[in-house]
């Protein structure tokens, strides 16, 4: 798990309408200067490596970027950055190559499909979009293959827009892009939600569309479908944080380091506009609560996919309250059902239908009740060891 390094906090050169960091910007004070030494000290204490984050990290002057990347390569052997791609220059690409920087780029599509990633006016927004796409082409040409993050909303994933997205995704596949992460739009503002958020049915439709499209692509993959399949196979080793019982007070998967060296949590859990200091005491009470709370009340009681989904990310919770399950439950459930059916058709028994599921659930609840998180894999291993031990003891007693 990388450290998210944010020298400039949430400062950004564009203003995507749906950005989950807007709560912090709404009440934000003056931008404080960053301190390279304090940031490096904090990264070392956290155990590195780090990913340069924002807002938009390429607002950091290029000399300081080089210093950070050079240090990062020396310390950890690699670097990473998450950017909107509008500010990438040839100089930046040189740095990416020289210092082994993995590039993550956020964009929602070409032309009008990216209009929700707003920048002051329509003309300027379209210019920034074109810059991002030129950056993608430049990066690939220079041998730096970025991973993309695409957020789905009415601007790019309503049914009339999906053919255009298909065209674009196929172009990316041809270009050599290998990985696209699909995000369902997180809503922190009612007006933004009303204007841009897809309905659950539209989200399902869009996700199923991309799921089918993936089969036609030569190398590009949408990570979410593979993750859901792996979860159903009880393999949660390298699944993303949204499936792994994130505690919003500690956000284990995101260890934020700010420009002054202070620690912070994942911004998705920040609904108050305040960067609370990471707690020293993890708690998984959310998950014990969701397990016991009826679905009609915002919980997950009785859901056969709970072990895999766990109510999803607390930053996407119903009404922004982390004690509720995700507002996208219907979408995820639909995808889990689809992949479950595929596995059954292939002759496999997914975890959701496995007779051992309840035993695993009880083990997980017991761990969470003690303030400890664990993976499905670790529980299976313990059960396997316990079974083998029981079998061996049984053999011993049976020997003449």
């Amino acid at each position, binding site marked *: 798990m990388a450290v998210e390094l944010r020298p400039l906090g949430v400062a950004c050169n564009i*203003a995507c*309408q749906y950005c989950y960091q*807007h*709560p912090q*910007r*709404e*009440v*934000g*004070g003056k931008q404080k200067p960053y301190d390279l030494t304090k940031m490096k000290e904090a990264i070392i204490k956290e155990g590195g490596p780090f990913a340069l984050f924002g807002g938009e990290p390429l607002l950091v002057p290029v000399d300081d970027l080089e210093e950070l990347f050079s240090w990062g390569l020396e310390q950890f052997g690699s670097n990473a950055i998450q950017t909107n791609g509008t500010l990438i220059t040839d100089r930046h690409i040189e740095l990416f190559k020289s210092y082994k920087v993995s590039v993550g780029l956020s964009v929602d599509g070409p032309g*009008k499909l990216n*209009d*929700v990633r*707003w920048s*002051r*006016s*329509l003309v300027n*927004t379209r210019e920034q979009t074109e810059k991002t796409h030129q950056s993608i082409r430049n990066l690939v040409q220079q041998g730096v293959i970025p991973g993309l993050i695409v957020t789905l909303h*009415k*601007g790019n994933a309503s049914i009339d827009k999906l053919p255009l997205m298909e065209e674009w995704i196929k172009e990316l596949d041809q270009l050599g892009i290998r990985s696209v992460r699909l995000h369902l739009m997180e809503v922190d*503002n009612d*007006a*933004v939600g009303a*204007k841009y958020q897809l309905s659950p049915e539209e989200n399902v439709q869009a996700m199923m569309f991309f799921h089918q499209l993936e089969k036609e692509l030569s190398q590009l993959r949408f990570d979410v479908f593979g993750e859901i399949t792996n979860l159903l196979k009880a393999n949660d080793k390298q699944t993303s944080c949204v499936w792994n019982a994130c*505690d919003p*007070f*500690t956000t284990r998967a995101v260890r934020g380091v700010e420009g002054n060296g*202070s620690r912070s949590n994942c911004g998705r859990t920040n*609904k*108050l*506009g*305040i*960067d*609370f*200091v*990471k*707690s020293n*005491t*993890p*708690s998984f*009470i*959310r998950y*014990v*609560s*969701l397990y*016991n*709370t*009826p679905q*009609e*009340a*915002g*919980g997950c009681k009785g859901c056969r996919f709970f072990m895999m989904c766990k109510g999803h990310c607390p930053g996407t919770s119903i*009404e922004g*309250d982390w*004690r*509720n399950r995700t507002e996208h439950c219907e979408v995820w459930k639909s995808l889990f059902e689809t992949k479950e059916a595929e596995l059954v058709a292939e002759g496999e028994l997914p975890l959701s239908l496995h007779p051992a599921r309840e035993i695993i659930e009880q083990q997980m609840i017991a761990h969470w*009740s*003690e*303030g400890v998180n664990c993976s499905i894999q670790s529980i299976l291993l313990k059960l396997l060891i316990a079974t083998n031990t029981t079998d061996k003891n049984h053999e011993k007693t049976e020997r003449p």
Partner: protein
Amino acid sequence: MKKPNDHSIILPASYTYAWVSDEARIAWHQRLEAANKAIILSTLSGLEHGNWERRSFRLYGNAWLFFLSEIGKTNFQYTSTIDRSASSGTRLCRTVEVYRQQGEVGLLGSSIESIDMQPSIWEAAVSSEQGRLLKENCFEFDSMLMKVLLWQDMGLSFFSDCLASLIDTQLEQLIESHLVWMNEVGLDQESDDIRTILTWPVSWSSLHGIQEIRTPLFKIAKNDPSYHPEKVTVHFLGKDLPKEMPEGLEFPYERSKSRKITGSKSFKKGMEQILE
């Protein structure tokens, strides 16, 4: 539509907290600990002085160890029990009664009410004439008693003598007399800090068996013995705010309704743009 309320849902003990900033933690962590210790010290000195015959505390974690080290310097007797309903994980809660005179243990009866017997925050808000309904399931409240109970639950060991039977004016007099005593025995800073803390606004809410308490300096999440299938909220009003409190979007952090992003011309222009 009312959601089903399953009173059989009881979550395991859990407690976690987060400071609003490192600056707030640095400025206040030791002051809060000092205030806690000062209450214990002043209570014992008050007993010594004959101000009162007995006193009670609800002590969490290290406050108990401090109490033991101080009571050992006196001849006072005391009783203590672990209050499981108020304990969370390793954060044990002990209810303690201290007696001035030898032989009074057990004779005067226990003055401490188990936390189970005290009204819940929500029950008090709903039934009190002081509570003002802001919107569905959200009350605004100006009760010193409930605020003291809330801070006590957060670890500031106020005396617990029959708190539930006191009315606000009685409690305010009780607190004021104790704080004046603290001034008399040289605990001026701690006395001032406690007065200050009690003027702060605090938000309490509960949903699905989890309470979240937001003070100007930190927020806490802990299990709630009362299960609410719909979120219930109580705002405890306060007239002062610590300078370390950051600006936020909701009570008690919201100082202004202005919004830099969603209130900006640029953002509004984007919202007016018709999707092609």
